[in-house]
């Protein structure tokens, strides 16, 4: 556990010293801030537009950070051979993978917290005060974090097997498909072919259902999802991430570091 913490803290330090991270966070803040302008030209729905834009910025820039730092997490250590130094110490390969994962999740959590603070600052500027009803977007932000945990798991899996460019393509493709799973299921149900229906149902069960975490629109209207849904989404994210990490560890344990 101690060694996982060491690697996680090191990964966090490494990530927060990446320039790309600051660029993305600054862009996210600009986009959240742009909500003020958009709100002023959206008569009657200025608050909804602002929440929509703010949460979308947190989601999109969180995704970009998760993908672009996640895909190079293991690859960079292998390519630069800094991994030799880590694995020559009494560190199991599984501990290395878990440390890398938790380090990036920590980075994302801190970034999301910073962007959330920026979002509420903009909301306060728009409304002049904040009420209990304004806490609804926090639920959507929690779902965004769950989604990012899954994205990091996917990026890390590809990072142990392929180059960053390929990992980015695979991770983003899986993210897009994962957001369309309910459409795929619907298409299967309407199809006359039992084989196609079965295939699409199997695909939607196996691939990560990123669409399940999309809660931005209801949050913008101040709607909260049921408590059991929060729990089931959390369990889904944790279980799926555990499966992804297990697969990553299995592959990495067998990898020859040439």
């Amino acid at each position, binding site marked *: 556990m*101690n*060694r996982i913490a060491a690697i996680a803290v*090191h990964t966090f330090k490494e990530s927060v010293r990446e320039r790309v991270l600051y660029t993305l966070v600054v862009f996210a803040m600009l986009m959240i801030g742009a909500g003020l302008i958009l709100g002023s030209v959206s008569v009657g729905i200025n608050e909804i537009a602002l929440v929509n834009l703010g949460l979308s910025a947190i989601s999109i820039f969180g995704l970009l950070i998760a993908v672009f730092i996640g895909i190079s997490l293991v690859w960079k250590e292998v390519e630069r051979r800094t991994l*030799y*130094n880590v*694995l*020559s110490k*009494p560190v*199991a390969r599984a501990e290395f993978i878990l440390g890398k994962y938790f380090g990036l999740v920590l980075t994302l959590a801190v970034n999301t917290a910073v962007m959330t603070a920026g979002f509420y600052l903009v909301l306060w500027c728009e409304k002049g005060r904040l009420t209990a009803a304004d806490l609804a977007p926090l639920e959507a932000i929690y779902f965004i974090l769950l989604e990012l945990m899954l994205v990091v798991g996917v990026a890390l899996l590809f990072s142990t097997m392929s180059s960053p460019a390929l990992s980015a393509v695979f991770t983003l493709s899986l993210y897009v498909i994962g957001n369309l799973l309910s459409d795929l299921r619907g298409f299967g149900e309407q199809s006359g072919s039992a084989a196609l229906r079965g295939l699409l149902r199997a695909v939607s069960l196996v691939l990560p259902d990123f669409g399940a975490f999309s809660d931005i629109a209801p949050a913008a209207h101040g709607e909260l999802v049921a408590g059991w849904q929060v729990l089931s989404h959390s369990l889904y994210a944790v279980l799926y991430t555990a499966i992804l990490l297990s697969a990553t560890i299995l592959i990495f344990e067998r990898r020859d570091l040439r």
Partner: protein
Amino acid sequence: MWAVEINELTKDYRLGFWSKKHKRALDHLSLTVEPGEVFGLLGPNGAGKTTLMKLLLRLTFPTAGSASILGRPLGDVRARARLGYLPENPYFYDHLTAAEFLNYAGWLCGLDAVERRQRSHELLERVGLSGSAGVPMRRFSKGMVQRLGIAQALVNDPDVVLLDEPMSGLDPLGRRQVRDLVLDLRRNGKTIFFSTHILPDAEALCDRVAVLNGGRLQDLGNLQEILRSSVQSIELVLHDPPPQALAALAGFNPTVTRNGDRVRLELSANADADAVLKAALGAGARVVSLNPVKLFSLEDYFLSRVQESAPRSTEEKVSSTEAGLG
């Protein structure tokens, strides 16, 4: 208990992702290293030295054979708790300072915060980098990186230290510093297992060496013994010999060089020295000296051994591509 024990260790690398062909990087290597010994692994580039290091650290997996460190098999993470390692051409994290890096290395070894601080301070002092503790590693010269690499290898006060080409790319001063560090470790009873192709360093430091070439063990033993036993030829020097003396010695196929009155005959190392002497004296020659010609340095020895096996290695490389993973 051996510090390092290697039994029939073999490693084949696949040539490409889709290819079924393999290249044998290490071929049934067996050797043992005693505790407290400075053991040198010698060989040209591609001899299998780094492959062996990686196998010992479980960075790659053997095709066949086994090895242990301080009695523990390589798969046992605890074996690495008493091990230090300096990779070849080390590259560490640009974004960390020297002190941060040693702190990280110590943390990975399970040291607590106080131990890590003390150990970092002590090691930076020992490798002459105490003035650069807060400097980011991207500003380090190669020599500084190498010394920091040695410091991180010693952070857990290991019993066995693996150094992969520790003098590579260093200037004479840097080499001297690393050499002194190794000698210091030996004085403290550590086992040093290091690979190098800089032979004077091996001559200066090693108790025993193993010579690897083409993945095979060519020689193993005490350095002085290896050099002593390597008679290359026999040299016979005569003073103004009559023609019949040279004719009598022609049967031994000598290489003859004349220098004034002196005639030097270089004969094969297998030539019967008694018979040579008898033939020369019988033909009326005045013998000045009869000496075995030995190798003077490890470098001479090493080159002769590598050249001896060069044709065989080339053939083997071709045939080994067909070898399968065991």
